[in-house]
């Protein structure tokens, strides 16, 4: 049995590597994916294109604008003299946000009345809009805080706004010391790049498993394989072990690029990462086999794979936080091996945690893997007979 199995594995590997274009296809797309995700997927907001219509032009408005500019989140690209000039800029997409001080703004402020600052935000990109308006609120809340503390008797500077130095220790205040753990600079690259490892393995192993088996059936060489003394279990192992080998090479490749090129910190154990990847492969190969049993042609296999892969990617927490999803979907996502693998990958890369905290997702992967493999192996056998 061991001999027959070895021959089959060797045959599969030869078949995969014979064609130079195929060799290219096995390893370059994963890297390309990593690079595009690493570079293209950037939700960090640094420089929101902003226009200003300051119709009041006083020390106070200039102070507020200075705070916006100094924050680094807003880049003033246009200064216009009329409020009506803001709308065309937003329409054309030249700016994402506009600040408008109406005449009388400062007068209201000095009289102790709420002074309206109009903020217009382009909401087409809701995420950017939300973050940008969050920053704006934060800057104004800080400004208001200082104003109000000035109002309760803290000495102020000439412009009416107390400086931070004067304020300290004169009036009660809550000071926030906020820190982001695991990713102090809040780089979205650190969030997305480790996740790509999961995506890439899943895509490669699913596609290779499903297509390799369906191909034999479609081209007609499956019958030749069946007349050999190979037993079904040997056939399954012979088809899946090469896929697992190639997937591991891809994992090593992608991890190396993530660490050495993108400088994503890896704080936990590399060994644990590979063990988890092995467990994850059990599930993905199981699903690949399952797809191969329901498809007659490679086109069907490809469509079935997309049908599975896209939702699996979307409800894995790769991009969209699972906590935001409806409860039903959150439960469904527990059956998604990618979800558990991503928890492990991010835990190992960013948090540096080990088995003591990661055993639940590992256990899920193991259980899902065994269930899927058994199911597909049974179906596969009945399809053969």
């Amino acid at each position, binding site marked *: 049995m061991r001999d027959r199995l070895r021959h089959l594995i060797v045959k599969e590997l030869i078949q995969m590597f014979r064609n130079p274009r*195929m060799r290219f*296809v096995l390893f370059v797309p994963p890297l390309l994916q990593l690079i*595009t995700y690493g570079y*293209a*997927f*950037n*939700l*960090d*907001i640094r420089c929101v*294109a902003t226009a200003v219509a300051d119709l009041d032009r006083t020390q106070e408005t200039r102070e507020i604008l200075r705070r916006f500019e100094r924050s680094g989140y807003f880049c003033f690209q246009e200064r216009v003299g009329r409020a009506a000039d803001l709308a065309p800029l937003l*329409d*054309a997409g030249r700016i994402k946000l506009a600040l408008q001080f109406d005449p009388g703004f400062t007068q*209201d402020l000095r*009289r102790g*009345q*709420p*002074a309206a*600052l*109009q903020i217009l*935000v*382009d*909401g*087409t*990109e*809701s*995420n950017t*809009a*939300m*973050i940008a*308006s*969050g920053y704006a*609120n934060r800057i*104004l*809340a*800080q400004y*208001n*805080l200082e104003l*109000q503390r000035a*109002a309760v008797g803290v000495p102020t500077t000439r412009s009416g706004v107390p400086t931070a130095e004067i304020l300290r220790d004169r009036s*009660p*205040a*809550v*000071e926030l010391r*906020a820190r982001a753990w695991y990713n102090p600079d*809040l780089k979205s690259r650190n*969030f997305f790049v480790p996740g790509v490892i999961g995506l890439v393995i899943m895509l490669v192993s699913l596609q*290779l498993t499903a*297509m390799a088996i369906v*191909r034999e059936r*479609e081209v007609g060489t499956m019958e030749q394989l069946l007349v050999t003394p190979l037993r079904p279990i040997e056939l399954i192992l012979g088809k899946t072990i090469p896929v697992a080998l190639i997937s591991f090479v891809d994992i090593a490749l992608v991890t190396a690029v993530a660490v050495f090129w993108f400088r994503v910190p890896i704080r936990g154990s590399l060994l644990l990462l590979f063990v988890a990847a092995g467990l994850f492969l059990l599930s993905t190969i199981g699903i690949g086999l399952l797809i191969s049993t329901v498809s007659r042609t*490679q*086109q069907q296999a490809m*469509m079935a794979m997309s*049908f599975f892969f896209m939702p699996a990617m*979307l409800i894995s927490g790769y991009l*969209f*936080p699972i*906590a935001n999803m409806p409860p039903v979907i959150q439960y469904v996502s527990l059956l998604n091996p990618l979800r558990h693998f991503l928890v492990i990958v991010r835990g190992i890369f960013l*948090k540096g945690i080990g088995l003591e*905290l990661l055993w639940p997702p590992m256990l899920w992967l193991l259980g899902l893997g065994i269930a899927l493999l058994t199911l597909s192996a049974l179906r596969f056998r009945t399809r053969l007979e």
Partner: protein
Amino acid sequence: MRPARLRAVIRKEVIQIRRDPWSLGMAFAIPMLLLLLFGWVLTLDVNNLETVVYDQDRSQRSRDLLERFEASHYFHVRTRALGWGEVERALDSGRAQVGLVIPRNFARDLERGLVVPIQAMVDGSDSNTATIALAYIETITARYSAQVALQIAGSSGPPPAAVDARLRVWFNPDLESKDFVVPGLVAVIMTVIGGLLSSLTLAREWERGTMEQLIATPIRVSELIVGKLAPYVGIGMLDVLLAVAGGTLIFGVPLRGSFWLLLGFSLLFLLGAVGLGLLISARSRTQLMASQLAMVATLLPSFMLSGFASPIENMPQALQIVSYAVPARYFVTALKGIFLKGIGLRMLWPEALFLAGFAAVVIALTMQAFHKRLD
């Protein structure tokens, strides 16, 4: 090009597609599934973040502050920790994404007029959620601080001045991510259908050996290409109708511009997408390779580099330049413009021009790449 032969190729392709109801079903099921997921399930909005609190003071004031966090609906205070270790573990294990620590003597020190620090820890591994959460935390704390200062000073003087931020959001007033996502999704769906289905058609003929039969017929290359193009463009257009109907009727995404303009853009885009699929197909002899190439050449760029999922301005310069060659970029711009801003061809003509040019070039390349030869 003879109409009779062309019709024959189209008929053969249609029969082949119809004989495989499973793939055809998938061609409609995948768009619906994506639409449902993006419309209902997926959102980057931040609310009810799991929060762990370590309140060392347990005073009226500390409870006041925590109540404000809770009342904002952005934070869901579930766990109350009794020590630092517990806070750390909650964040490590992912049970909580935000930790708040209020020091002992919080209330007393405030009464004394001191500046009292509170600590907030946010799980930064999801950088997007963390960024939004930090902004909320700062805003809530600053507002609370301002109020406490007034309370303690005994608000006897005139009411304090404040800048009142009047935020108005254009084009998508409720900041619903589905309004942003669904129009762009039409482009992704069409790439999936156009690219994936068509990329296998020629490769399949090679792999199964039926290409030789096709070569032996008097059919011309142009007839074969157009004949293969037409049915898939047809399926793609049906998908567009389905996606637009689903997006507007089920999810209430506004369609402010012209419906016909939208269809016109879709047709131009599909011609290019299906053409690219055929080009890949003509260049590869096995379906596995064709499908891998299709993923990389069509799906990846239209998902990543089109501005669908992540803003193009945030990308490095080199990728921004690459994105100019991605047709989905122009299509996504056109879709968002038509859906949300209601603008017309007067502003979108450069996009239309590019899409038409891309389709023409790709189809010409396919005809050149495909020879009626056996080698």
